[in-house]
């Protein structure tokens, strides 16, 4: 692809700033494919008038009479982007997309040697760019944003059109003009289900015939199957005869949103229009063939991402459903047909099972498989409708046409491509590389709408979470090793209670500081073996951790040892020695207050400074870290029997 924008420049119709609005009006009507025109002042571009902008202007009250006879200088947009033909595509894209949302689809005027060469249409630019593989995804994303904005604009615009349509008793020429040039079809039907005379020209283009006075059903017949058409007719009748608005809404929601007419994809939007006691249904028709093509790719990526997320979150369901499906698809179907004497009954049972699988697979985002089953279900439905004209061999043939492997191939490939070949190994847990998860998060952010991202991302983020129990268990080795160096004996740590999943990165400084607790237990709390035997305790010391999840956003865990407990007399002595409080003050202290002293900096009741437990910095460090993340710690001790640390933490 050429790197400059020159190849995208198209000649553009120009008007002089002095020309009147009507001249542009005439030009737009005569050239319905034109997106906009450039307005020049002494042959230099001074502004532009885009089609949609023009019709918005004249759509305002008195707009037509205000602008049609006056110079274009009054109505044109002067804040326009003018670039040189040598400008490269990347820079062009950056500048063009960096405009205000309402300007983003405006022409960019292009100059060559000081003369106006022509204009670049953003639509052409996007088509050109989306051909370039390396920019594809990025562009689709931007395009999506623009489509969203364009849709928003379109919605506001439609609301405006609709309002005018209602308010004006007599439709003036300019409104008719507006409707005809909006690039969309508008038509209304009356309670006889006949198209009224109020329709826009675009409808004629879409249907290829004059639509006024025709029954709506005859216009739709080519694009809708007979049953569905009857259903639509039934719905229209119901809407006309029913006054309850909720009922109307429920019925209208059953109408198809898209119908293929003359080989184009047409989007259908339906609105109930009330004027006085009279009710009409308005159809707003948009040709979305082009847009669909661009969106399809993105939609596919989104579906695949959704499947990947489900695959990780609901692995057991996916594996179990596929196993059941395989058994049914490769065996049960044929058994049922062979064994069940009543053919119709066998057929009905198979139909129900296929239907259930279809639904369950769709719920698990395995859309490819679900869609294929939908086709088989249609075949079965036909057989059910006329069982006499089918044999069980023919029905078995529905299932032989596509092998099980082919049936699930696409969805299975999405899973293994994203999560690796190991996914389907019989194992309850999935190990996913952290970078893969980050890549999935990034893709979701770039491809999905903010609303959808907000729903998907928390699930994906949780994949990076760790079970707090595992974090505590990591201290086991350290505890046993430390105890052994001090010639003490200890059991493995016991961890009980809820599985609490946390974003380990956010808690790391705190969880690292827990080393101090376990070191204290090994060094200070647990007695040497002979002392434990004398006291009638198990020769091996024990540590028990317990986790409790507290809704909505907190959790508590405790670390409890069965050591000697904290000696209050030693705490008092130490406090005196350090000159922290007077003997009188200390005598007044409650046990709880004394325990708080233990958490102070530089407070250690162990007589000697050892290599292992250092200088009593330990507990105060834990306290500082937990407070840093908005948590609290408490100590409870029973002299001779043990100490319990309780930590209350927020979910970060």
């Amino acid at each position, binding site marked *: 692809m050429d790197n400059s924008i020159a190849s995208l420049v198209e000649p553009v119709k120009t008007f002089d700033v002095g020309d009147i609005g009507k001249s542009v009006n005439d030009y737009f009507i005569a050239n319905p494919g034109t997106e906009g025109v450039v307005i020049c002042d002494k042959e230099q571009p001074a502004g532009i008038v885009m089609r949609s902008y023009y019709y918005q202007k004249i759509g305002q009250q008195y707009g037509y009479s205000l602008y049609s006879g006056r110079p274009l200088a009054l109505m044109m947009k002067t804040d326009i982007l003018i670039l040189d033909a040598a400008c490269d595509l990347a820079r062009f894209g950056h500048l063009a997309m960096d405009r205000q949302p309402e300007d983003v689809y405006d022409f960019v005027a292009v100059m060559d040697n000081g003369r106006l060469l022509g204009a670049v249409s953003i639509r052409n630019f996007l088509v050109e760019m989306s051909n370039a593989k390396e920019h594809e995804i990025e562009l689709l994303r931007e395009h999506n944003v623009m489509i969203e904005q364009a849709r928003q604009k379109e919605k506001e615009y439609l609301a405006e059109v609709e309002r005018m349509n209602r308010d004006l008793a007599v439709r003036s020429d300019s409104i008719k003009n507006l409707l005809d040039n909006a690039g969309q079809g508008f038509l209304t039907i009356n309670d006889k289900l006949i198209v009224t005379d109020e329709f826009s020209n675009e409808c004629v283009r879409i249907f290829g015939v004059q639509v006024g006075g025709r029954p709506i059903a005859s216009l739709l017949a080519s694009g809708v199957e007979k049953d569905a058409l009857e259903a639509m007719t039934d719905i229209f009748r119901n809407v006309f005869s029913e006054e309850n608005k*909720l009922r109307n809404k429920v*019925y209208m929601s059953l*109408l198809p949103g898209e119908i293929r007419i003359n080989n184009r994809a047409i989007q259908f939007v339906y609105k109930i229009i009330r004027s006085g006691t009279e009710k009409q249904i308005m159809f707003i028709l948009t040709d979305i063939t082009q847009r669909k093509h661009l969106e399809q790719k993105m939609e596919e990526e989104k579906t695949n991402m959704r499947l990947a997320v489900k695959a990780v979150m609901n692995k057991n369901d996916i594996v179990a459903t596929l196993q059941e499906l395989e058994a049914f698809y490769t065996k049960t179907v044929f058994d049922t047909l062979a064994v069940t004497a009543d053919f119709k009954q066998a057929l009905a049972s198979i139909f129900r099972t296929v239907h259930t699988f279809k*639904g*369950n697979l769709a*719920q698990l*985002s395995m859309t490819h498989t679900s869609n294929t089953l939908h086709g088989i279900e249609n075949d079965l439905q036909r057989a059910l409708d006329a069982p006499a004209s089918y044999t069980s061999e023919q029905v078995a043939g529905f299932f032989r046409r596509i092998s099980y492997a082919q049936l699930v191939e696409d969805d299975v490939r999405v899973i293994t491509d994203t999560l690796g070949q190991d996914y389907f190994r019989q194992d309850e847990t999935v190990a996913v590389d952290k970078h893969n998860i980050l890549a999935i998060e990034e893709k979701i952010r770039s491809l999905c709408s903010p609303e959808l991202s907000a729903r998907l991302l928390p699930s994906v983020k949780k994949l990076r979470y760790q079970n707090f129990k595992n974090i505590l268990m990591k201290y086991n080795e350290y505890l046993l090793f430390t105890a052994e160096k001090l010639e003490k004996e200890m059991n493995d740590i016991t961890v009980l209670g809820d599985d609490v999943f946390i974003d380990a990165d956010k808690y790391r400084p705190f969880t690292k500081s827990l080393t101090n607790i376990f070191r204290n237990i090994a060094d200070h709390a647990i007695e040497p073996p002979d002392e434990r035997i004398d006291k009638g305790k198990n020769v091996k010391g024990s540590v028990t951790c317990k986790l409790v999840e507290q809704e909505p956003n907190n959790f508590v865990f405790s670390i409890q040892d069965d050591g000697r407990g904290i000696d209050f007399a030693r705490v008092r002595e130490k406090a005196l020695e350090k000159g922290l409080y007077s003997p009188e003050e200390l005598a007044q202290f409650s046990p709880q207050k004394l325990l708080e002293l233990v958490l102070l900096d530089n407070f250690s009741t162990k007589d000697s400074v050892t290599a292992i437990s250092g200088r009593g910095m330990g507990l105060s460090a834990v306290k500082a870290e937990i407070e840093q993340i908005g948590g609290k710690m408490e100590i409870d001790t029973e002299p001779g029997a043990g100490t319990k640390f309780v930590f209350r933490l927020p979910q970060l």
Partner: protein
Amino acid sequence: MPTILITDDSRFMRDNLKNILLEAGHKVVGEAANGKESVELYQKLHPDLVTMDITMPVLSGLDALKQIVALDPKANVVMVTAIGKPEKVLEALNAGAKNYITKPFEKEKVLEIIDELLLPV
């Protein structure tokens, strides 16, 4: 608190729907695996709302709907149906179903439909 009866022949679907309803604080008083069970449970439990799968063994959702509406013309029955079957839904609406949920369902949509029917207007 309004009470809800779930009807679906797939346990997976029942669980899915139940989780959505329970999470939102609704009270699920019963689960039926086919239309017949649903009608029986309806008579016994008098739930404020019934969700009704359409394709089920023994007694289909449409037949169960008709029986329930015959017993209680004010019954709130919401059909649960695979996407792309407007004819079946239409038949159910004409037979007295109040609304419908399409599978695969999304939590927000399910709750919106249920709340619309259960909240006093």
